[in-house]
């Protein structure tokens, strides 16, 4: 078995549970981008998001033996990451600092706002400017949402989790989760009217 072989996720999880670090490293490579996306959208700060993802992945390795269903790895690791991000938000609140002030978001994924030079939209400067403005405006709206509302919205709209998975991730009932996501959508839609 070589590291280069493309193994399916089920096999990688079982081999990682067996202690094969190379298998876990492939899982890290597959999932770190989406975990970073979740953490950054919740925290609005690149450095904090990176720290949360790092800690989550190491914690996932240590707890991997507790995962009974290898097919559940995707949701399970996202749950660890989103809880880590929530802990950071709570620590911030305890320190009585403003949760993710809008200017903090300027320290985020710079390229997301200026767009990739090779990206499809870069050829159209007017479109690029519009998208950049929308991204920054979205980031500001997210920063103003209640953290629990923001997390549910991110897991649904950014990570594509099912409502059931979100309920498990945030320890809330489905009506609660649906309500939070609905409030976030309504707030974003309302704010979008201001951007026009």
């Amino acid at each position, binding site marked *: 078995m070589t590291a280069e072989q493309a193994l399916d996720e089920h096999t990688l999880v079982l081999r990682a549970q*067996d202690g094969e670090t190379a298998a876990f490293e492939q899982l890290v490579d597959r999932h770190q981008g989406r975990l970073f996306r979740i953490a950054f959208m919740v925290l609005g700060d690149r450095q904090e998001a990176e720290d949360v*993802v790092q800690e989550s992945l190491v914690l996932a390795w240590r707890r991997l033996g507790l995962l009974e269903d290898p097919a559940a790895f995707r949701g399970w690791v996202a749950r660890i990451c989103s809880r880590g991000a929530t802990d950071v938000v709570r620590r911030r609140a305890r320190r009585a600092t403003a949760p993710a002030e809008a200017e903090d978001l300027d320290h985020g994924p710079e*390229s997301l706002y200026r767009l990739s030079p090779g990206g499809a939209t870069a050829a159209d400067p007017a479109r690029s400017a519009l998208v950049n403005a929308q991204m920054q405006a979205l980031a500001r709206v997210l920063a103003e949402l209640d953290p629990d509302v923001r997390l549910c919205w991110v897991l649904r*709209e950014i990570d594509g989790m099912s409502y059931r998975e979100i309920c498990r991730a945030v320890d809330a009932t489905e009506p609660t989760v649906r309500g939070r996501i609905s409030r976030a959508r309504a707030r974003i*839609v309302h704010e*979008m009217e201001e951007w026009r």
Partner: protein
Amino acid sequence: MHHPEQQGPDEDAAATRRYLDLIRTVHTEWDELERAGDSSVQLSAGALATVKESVRADARHGAHVHLPPTPAGPYTVSELALRTLVRREIDAIPGARALRTTFEHDETPDSATGRSRGLPTRALCRISVRLGAEDLPGLAEQIRAAVRRAAATELGLDDLVVDIHIEDLHEH
């Protein structure tokens, strides 16, 4: 990549369209940047290396397993080494791929700490077999013999019981 539902119960159609466009744009831009390897939308190379090194270090410092004593005295190996040996033997058999192995151990005075495990008495090897492989019982027997031989010659474990459980099929 996920796209949001097409229905927004309390939103008018135009506002919903603009909202869905925005979400699509977020996905498109992130996906493009990630595909291009842009470091601003994922872990930096340094952070990734730190995660992987932490995992390797953690694996190295895992539990130790008691083996039959040698003339020089008590003998233990890391659980990682034991698992690596079993995986290596299974993967070496054409058509077989190791998944996960669980061990039963004798009790030892320090088992409760989790840092040390007693003599392995039984191994349950969960494996995947290449699609189309013939004579599955024969393949299982080959694997059992290989694991038992390696356990005996490399670790001095002459009486290890090896169970093989074929639980998956793979194509390549």
